[in-house]
């Protein structure tokens, strides 16, 4: 394993995050190697890296997910480390392991820690043990309605019954009070039995309109952990985040301090290193419940960078070089203002159908408090093989209101012609009175798109 400063890093990713990592490396004086599929031959990360290698055909399984190709590319270019970006191999413990055995530093947590965070039940059990709040519920299968009634009484209503084997809403019942429980319990069991051949159900606290709140953590390889201010990512459609911000309009300093303390302890105990994000649901009373941990850099990391001034990707690389967090952060973390991010996707803003194709006209907004992370340019082609993220538009303001107004004007000045984008959808979100007031939850998009349905938040 090379120690000390990296001379050369391979970026095992594509799109805006590959460009983001290349930028960080350039600023650290590190040479970069881009890898690309045949479909990405003309992508920006190929252009801006010091070296670029084609590693396979368009299909991810044979290029960006193909471990032997990537390790081979790393070996023939003689890199010290691999940055996996997000998605693809970023949370693949096996890949991290292969890097390690190949003598290449994987810029991320250790394989065993990635493995822990990947198994949700284990991660939750660990967090619970560490005193981080998780969603209360039954430890295993409920035998009968009485057992359910007793547990629900302890947890408090509403609760949700879920099929143990299930998914997709089958065998699920939201229970508002004790009177309804026995009947719904039987229904859930019957539906679960019919759908999954086992009638086993379990019970969990139900949050009707949760906010999605997450904490960015940075941990060095010497045991120091720092918890950065939270992001709120409640504006989602089918679990795809559309708008993120920091700080959350729903947080306060007391809760922030409590969470930071609990997470610092948990991360240190887990031996967590590098960057990661701990995701929570927040209920209507402002209480947080751990849901999962992402052991990689997050798409929405720029909002945290904008308010703290900390370069998270450079921090990742420097941590992997063995540097100490104290030298990287140089002083206490301070928040200035408010930041918003809109994920500009290549998709029809009404039908959400992906919209691949050639960008015939492209104009990026600039000016004060505006940041754009993208890989596209005039005349480039958005291939249909990968995710639809075209650009991240991030704004910063002295407060949330200014960040929103700035985002509005930046959206006005963002011109992408030739394909459909989600820009009109983002305009609608920003104009919504609930958004303006900071009344956010994961059901927001569903209500905005189908106001007639009093939809249960997804």
């Amino acid at each position, binding site marked *: 394993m090379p120690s000390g400063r990296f001379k050369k890093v391979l970026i095992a990713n594509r799109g805006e995050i590959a460009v983001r990592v290349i930028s960080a490396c350039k600023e650290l004086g590190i040479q970069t190697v881009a890898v690309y599929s*045949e479909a990405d031959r003309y992508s920006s990360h190929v252009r801006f890296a010091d070296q670029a*290698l084609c590693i396979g055909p368009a299909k991810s399984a044979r290029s960006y997910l193909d471990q032997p*190709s990537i390790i*081979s590319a790393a070996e023939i270019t003689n890199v010290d480390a691999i940055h996996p970006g997000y998605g693809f191999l970023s949370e693949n413990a096996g890949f991290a392991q292969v890097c390690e055995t190949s003598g290449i530093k994987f810029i991320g947590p250790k394989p065993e820690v990635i493995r822990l965070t990947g198994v949700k039940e284990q991660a939750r059990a660990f967090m619970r043990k560490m005193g981080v709040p998780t969603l209360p519920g039954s430890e295993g299968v409920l035998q009968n309605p009485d057992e359910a009634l007793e547990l629900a009484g302890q947890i408090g209503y509403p609760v949700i019954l879920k099929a143990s084997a299930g998914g997709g809403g089958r065998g699920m019942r939201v229970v508002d009070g004790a009177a309804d429980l026995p009947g719904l319990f039987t229904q859930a069991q019957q539906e679960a039995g019919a759908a999954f051949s086992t009638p086993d159900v379990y019970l969990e606290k139900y949050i009707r309109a949760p906010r999605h709140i997450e904490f960015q953590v940075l941990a060095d390889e010497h045991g120091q952990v720092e918890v950065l201010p939270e992001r709120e990512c409640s504006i989602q459609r089918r679990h795809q985040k559309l708008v993120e911000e920091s700080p959350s309009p729903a947080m306060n300093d007391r809760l922030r301090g409590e969470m930071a303390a609990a997470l610092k302890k948990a991360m240190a105990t887990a031996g967590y290193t590098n960057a990661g994000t701990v995701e929570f649901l927040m209920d209507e009373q402002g209480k947080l419940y751990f849901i999962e941990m992402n052991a990689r850099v997050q798409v929405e990391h720029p909002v945290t960078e904008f308010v703290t001034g900390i370069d998270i990707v450079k921090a990742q690389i420097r941590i992997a070089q063995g540097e100490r967090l104290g030298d990287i952060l140089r002083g206490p973390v301070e928040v200035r203002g408010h930041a918003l991010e809109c994920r500009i996707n290549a998709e029809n803003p009404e039908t959400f159908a992906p919209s691949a194709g050639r960008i015939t006209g492209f104009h990026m907004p600039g000016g004060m408090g505006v940041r754009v992370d993208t890989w596209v340019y005039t*005349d480039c082609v958005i291939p*249909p093989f990968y995710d639809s993220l075209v650009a991240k538009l991030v704004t910063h303001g002295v407060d949330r209101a200014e960040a929103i107004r700035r985002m509005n004007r930046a959206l006005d000045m963002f011109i992408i012609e030739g394909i459909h984008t989600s820009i009109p959808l983002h305009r609608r979100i920003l104009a919504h009175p609930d958004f303006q007031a900071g009344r956010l939850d994961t059901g927001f998009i569903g209500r905005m798109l189908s106001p007639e349905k009093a939809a249960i938040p997804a």
Partner: protein
Amino acid sequence: MTVDEIRELIRLATETGVAELEVQRGEDRVRIRRAGFTSQEITIGAPAVGAFSGPASGVPFETSRERTEPPVDPNLILVKSPIVGTFYEGPSPDAAPFVSVGERVQPGKVLCIIESMKLMNEIEAEIAGVVESRLVMNGQPVEYGEALFAIRAV
């Protein structure tokens, strides 16, 4: 035209980045339109020769684009690397090369080795022909799809 020939044409369309490819051979005809291309754009040849087209200069692999261009001569077939790795002309440093330029080869003849992750992958000829040129130096790293040999079909 066989399915394999059509597959080859699709690969060609993807490699060269054309939006649409139409081929007629006698009474057989194939038309391929790639995803993400509108019909107006049929006539655009290479992708993005406008804004910026090449990787940064000084890239060791910068010539790969030319190498993957289809040869003008339809009988000259390029043998391309199916994996990323290091090219070796022979089975060991002291051994003779598997093939030399001018040699006649049959399908299945081992042409070279690509080492990838300590594994030696033998690359075989798929057609019968004469090795017209070797395009890579011994010990040189190669990327996916990089042309290794040109073989003239006979």
